[in-house]
């Protein structure tokens, strides 16, 4: 029979719409509005999984996100999600779930043998057992432990859904939409403040939906629905369901996860599965309620043992009988509700076992009326049964007899009292304090703009929740600058006192040793707490780490206070002396995907494209990432062309004829003002005061510590107007460097500057025929006399306005033309068209690198932050008669000493063998054993088509004076040694005749 545990009526489910789903391959049906847990209970299924360490059968403990046991694998294939809580999964058509941590099946699990060896698996078991030999740590122990312990398995395919992130600001944020939260929202919203009210459930109302309350003469759930409707109609209120606040950070920034599509088979088109929200609220009201704690008795983890409040939630909210014969165990008045509600739902409540000697007379009378047996001064000592509870063994709390009375039942609904949900308060930096009257922790002094109200503050009466909510909502809006609210709290029927008397651990029947669990998700027992304490791990923080209590995905929501209290009993001290562990985000387990948001795959990093990108792509160029830029690395011409084929061909074409390269990514900075020259003079090591208009100059910048920072050319375009170029990598850092010095060191200089990298497309035209090509399209005289090496000026290229510079990175006769970027592709095409008859070609960054090495130009791999201008052979540029950044520190004795690494050229003496970047340079007579024997290293390598051998630049100890020496270039990772000859770093045209041609 299907849904044999469903009540005949009641519950906020839609009985008209039945939903089919499967669990462990078996089909079931439930109703719309069910969770997976309530639907399985309706079908009489309690067994949900095997426990973490002992593989004990486990069922459903709770009806909310605090669930430690009912953890399943949801969905299949790429959408598979392990470790999801059956108690929070909303049922949808076709849902597929599977139990975890069992083999071969849930009912018969081979690893349950761990249960018999449990004495070996005590607290600190890892630390004690897997000590030696050390060689076993990763190879043996890790594998064994990983297989035996643990929960679900990760999916192996990529998640087909997407996640996103959102931001919102508000004046008042209310977390939790129970009676307190709704009251607060009504009060705050009435002042016109911007209010966000969020709740993790699909239905707003909190306990008003799961309890039989009465407010303003109406059933609680009706009052809640009216309040929600009122709030929904206000445009200053944002109501959010299925949204859990999981993190409270500094400056009142909080983060939440919205489960947008988890209740659907697949997300709607264009909708994310989940969304992460970052909120910036003025004030936060924490109406997060309380979590019931279990009683610690023998076998309290058996399926059929449940929190008292969860049992009545299943009856009230879902119309499900969580059992047929129930025993209620409690130490407070609240659990009597469960007896009454379960009775009403048709469950046979066989007994209420109250550990207090004198339960309240009113409650006693109510039970009497319903003929429910009350056993005062007693509690459940242990549960009986293999895979489900069969009976409860009742012992007296006085301990006068340990011979239990046996009561047959299939449900033990237990309440050890309520813990206010102080997690977010604790995350905000505040310290919860112990309140003896409720034997639990309540919020302490606020450290940020937050306040806790209602059950979250330890005020469990409904009227208190309504009153505090109304007052806090009005107060928060007032503090946020709004006029005081004039709104009265709703009134509720008196629910009577809570009257808890602590019972931290039950007496054991027959004096037998039973497993009494405190942390069910991590399989931590009361005996583990005792053992840890005996072994000296008796502070709250140490105990947590030694036993792993509270470190599972439920973060010990149901176990923390019980553990601390049992530890206090061990130490013979009151609970406040033991203290409380600190709660950290996230409050609930959050999928990693939501933190990444949509920035995965294509969107992982933004891409910077030049104006010539589309043309490059069409040509089949192979790209290389340079920071965020995509630059053309080389251009294959025929199928099977390798990178070597390409860059050698491109280099030869440039050196013998003319070729274009896209240099847009170089940083470009526009500098203007009367003090521009002086500013440059302080930034660069060389002279800038006398640079004529229409000229470019190569410059070197140092850092404050005297090391070379960046290089590039700067041109003077007009009297007070300069145009600086930087390396691609340092475009941002150089601008920041300039901003810092201008703002904090030399604010007196009248100079302004900004990046114009994006405005201009840069094209270098290089090769002996470059002038011939440009003369066809450029409107100015390009003769050596009119436009010599290092000339700069404005021009027009056909119709396109531009700036022309006669500079060369290749060592050939070369020009660089800059045009406004929207004309970049057009300029490129026109140059190719004009050069067609002379056979113009293009080259990428690989050939660019080859030519710069051949020419001995230093670049990023030599400017590694450890080299000085002297090391790089550029000291000649420096004018030490003026001040410049890094001047003083570059003169420190250690930087002038002999024995420093200096830039050299290196030629491979092995035919057809290229050198490798990172190879160490060593004396051929010694074998490279330690880094001390290295005399330097190779920084950049290429095959030189000009020299027809492998060449490199390197940094070598006293390299400038060692030209002609032979060394070994050793690459220990591949056990490779190549003979090299040290030479001058400029391999071609040392006199610079070509560039001046």
């Amino acid at each position, binding site marked *: 029979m299907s849904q044999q545990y469903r009540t005949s009526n009641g519950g906020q489910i839609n009985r008209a719409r039945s939903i089919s789903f499967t669990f462990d391959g078996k089909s079931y049906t439930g109703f719309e509005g069910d969770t997976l847990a309530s639907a399985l209970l309706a079908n009489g299924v309690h067994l949900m999984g095997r426990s973490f360490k002992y593989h004990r059968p486990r069922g459903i403990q709770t009806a909310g996100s605090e669930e430690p046991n009912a953890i399943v694998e949801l969905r299949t294939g790429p959408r598979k999600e392990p470790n999801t809580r059956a108690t929070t999964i909303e049922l949808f058509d076709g849902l597929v779930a599977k139990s975890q941590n069992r083999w071969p099946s849930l009912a018969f699990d081979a690893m349950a043998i761990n249960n018999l060896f449990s004495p070996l698996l005590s607290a600190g078991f890892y630390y004690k057992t897997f000590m030696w030999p050390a060689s076993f740590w990763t190879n043996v122990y890790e594998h064994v432990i990983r297989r035996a312990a643990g929960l679900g398995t990760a999916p192996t395919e990529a998640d087909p859904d997407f996640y*996103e992130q*959102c931001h919102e*600001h508000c004046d008042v944020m209310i977390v939790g939409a129970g009676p307190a939260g709704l009251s607060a929202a009504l009060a705050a919203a009435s002042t016109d403040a911007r209010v966000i009210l969020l709740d993790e459930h699909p239905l707003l109302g909190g306990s008003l939906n799961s309890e039989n309350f009465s407010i303003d003469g109406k059933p609680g759930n009706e009052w809640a629905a009216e309040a929600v409707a009122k709030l929904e109609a206000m445009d200053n209120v944002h109501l959010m369901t299925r949204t859990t606040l999981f993190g409270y950070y500094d400056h009142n920034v909080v983060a939440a996860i919205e489960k947008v599509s988890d209740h659907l088979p697949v997300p709607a088109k264009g909708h994310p599965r989940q969304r992460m929200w970052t909120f*910036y609220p003025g004030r936060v009201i924490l109406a997060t309620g309380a979590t019931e704690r279990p009683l610690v008795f023998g076998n309290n983890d058996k399926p059929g043992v449940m929190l008292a409040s969860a049992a009545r939630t299943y009856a009230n909210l879902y119309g499900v009988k969580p059992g047929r014969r129930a025993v209620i165990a409690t130490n407070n008045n609240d659990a009597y509700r469960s007896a009454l509600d379960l009775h009403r739902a048709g469950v046979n409540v066989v007994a209420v076992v109250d550990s207090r000697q004198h339960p309240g007379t009113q409650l006693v009378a109510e039970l009497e009326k319903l003929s429910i047996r009350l056993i005062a001064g007693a509690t459940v000592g242990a549960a009986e049964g293999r895979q489900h509870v069969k009976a409860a063994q009742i012992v007296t709390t006085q301990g006068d007899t340990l011979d239990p009375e046996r009561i047959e039942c299939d449900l033990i609904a237990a309440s050890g009292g309520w813990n206010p949900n102080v997690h977010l308060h604790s995350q905000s930096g505040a310290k919860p304090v112990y309140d003896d009257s409720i034997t639990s922790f309540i919020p302490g002094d606020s450290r940020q703009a937050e306040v806790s109200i209602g059950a979250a503050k330890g005020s469990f009466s409904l009227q208190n929740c309504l009153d505090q909510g109304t007052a806090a909502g009005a107060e928060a809006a007032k503090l946020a600058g709004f006029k005081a609210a004039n709104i009265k709290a709703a009134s509720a029927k008196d629910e009577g006192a809570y009257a808890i008397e602590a019972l931290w651990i039950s007496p054991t029947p027959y004096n037998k040793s039973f497993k009494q669990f405190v942390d069910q998700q991590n399989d931590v027992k009361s005996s583990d707490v005792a053992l840890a304490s005996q072994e000296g791990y008796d502070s709250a923080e140490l105990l947590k780490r030694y036993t792993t209590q509270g470190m599972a995905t439920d973060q010990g929501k149901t176990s923390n206070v019980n553990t601390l209290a049992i530890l206090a009993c061990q130490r013979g001290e009151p609970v406040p002396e033991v203290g409380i562990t600190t709660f950290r985000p996230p409050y609930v387990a959050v999928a990693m995907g939501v933190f990444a948001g*949509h920035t995965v795959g294509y969107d992982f990093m933004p891409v910077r494209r030049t104006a010539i990108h589309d043309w490059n792509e069409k040509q089949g160029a192979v790209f290389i990432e340079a920071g965020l*830029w995509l630059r053309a690395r080389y251009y294959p011409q025929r199928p099977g062309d390798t990178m070597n084929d390409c860059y050698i061909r491109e280099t030869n074409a440039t050196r013998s004829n003319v070729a274009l390269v896209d240099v847009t990514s170089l940083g470009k900075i526009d500098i203007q003002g009367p003090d521009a020259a002086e500013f440059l003079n302080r930034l660069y090591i060389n002279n800038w005061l006398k640079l004529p208009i229409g000229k470019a100059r190569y410059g070197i910048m140092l850092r404050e510590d005297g090391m070379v920072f960046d290089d590039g050319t700067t041109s003077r375009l007009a009297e007070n107007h300069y145009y600086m170029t930087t390396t691609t990598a340092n475009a941002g850092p150089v601008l920041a460097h300039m901003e810092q010095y201008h703002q904090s060191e030399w604010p007196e200089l009248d100079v302004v*500057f900004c990046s114009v990298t994006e405005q201009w497309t840069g094209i270098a035209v290089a090769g002996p025929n470059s002038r011939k090509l440009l003369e066809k399209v450029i*409107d100015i005289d390009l003769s050596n006399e009119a436009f010599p090496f290092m000339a700069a000026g404005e021009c027009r290229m056909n119709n396109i306005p531009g700036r022309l510079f006669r500079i060369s990175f290749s060592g050939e006769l070369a020009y660089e033309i800059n045009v*406004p970027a929207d004309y970049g592709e057009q300029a490129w095409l026109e140059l190719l068209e004009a050069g067609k008859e002379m056979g113009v070609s293009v080259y990428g960054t690989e050939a660019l690198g080859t030519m710069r090495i051949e020419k001995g130009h230093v670049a990023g791999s030599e400017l590694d932050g450890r080299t000085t201008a002297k090391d790089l052979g550029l000291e000649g540029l420096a004018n030490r008669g003026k001040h410049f950044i890094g001047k003083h520190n570059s003169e420190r004795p250690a930087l002038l000493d002999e024995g420093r690494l200096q830039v050299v050229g290196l030629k491979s003496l092995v035919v057809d063998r290229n050198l490798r970047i990172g190879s160490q340079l060593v004396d051929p007579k010694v074998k490279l054993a330690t880094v001390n024997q290295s005399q330097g290293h190779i920084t950049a390598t290429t095959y030189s088509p000009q020299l027809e051998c492998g060449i490199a630049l390197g940094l070598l100890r006293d390299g400038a004076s060692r030209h002609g020496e032979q060394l070994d270039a050793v690459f220990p990772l591949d056990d490779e040694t190549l003979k090299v000859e040290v030479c001058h770093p400029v391999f071609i045209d040392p006199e610079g005749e070509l560039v001046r041609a």
Partner: protein
Amino acid sequence: MPKKQDATPDLVRKSPLLPKSGDFIVDHKNLRLQERKALSAIQVLSFKGKHQASAKAISAVLGIECSTQPGVCNSDGKTQVAWNGPNSWMIVANDEEAGRASGELFKTLQDAIGELAAVIDQSHGRCGLRLSGPRARAVMAKNTAVDLHPRAFGPGRCALTSVAHMNATIVQVDDAPTYDLFVIRSLARSFAHAIEHACHEFEGEQ
């Protein structure tokens, strides 16, 4: 010798958003995202002690108030004068709408305030996108932490901030709401992709 070809091709500005010519546009019931083409974007950096004088001169030459207040963008409906830093403004207009020739805005400003400030043409360095419609604010909430609620932001306001993890300028144009988003040209496609992606959720709305 200078050589000028007889017949030279016309100048055509190519959008950084598309490989080919055409219009970049997203058009849903509650959302519209399109490129602002033929954009002039002129950055002005006032010289030392010339900030107020520069503001006055800009106001005079454009007939639009130029504010020295952070986060303010004044406009005559065609040309926007957006605060761009402690000594800087970005002056933006669609040349066709404003009835100016290409390059004219730059020249006008250069002539009027060249002594007071550096006038720098960034027209080709910025990509402008216009996002408009009832869902525009929801789309922006997915990409920026700036509070764009009508109580905190509105027409005449601008923000230099991070949008979809990229540096951008947000200018609110009207109450539709309409936002102009300016981003550096090289990032245009990544930027537009992120905004377009954030629009998908509202695609099916009728």
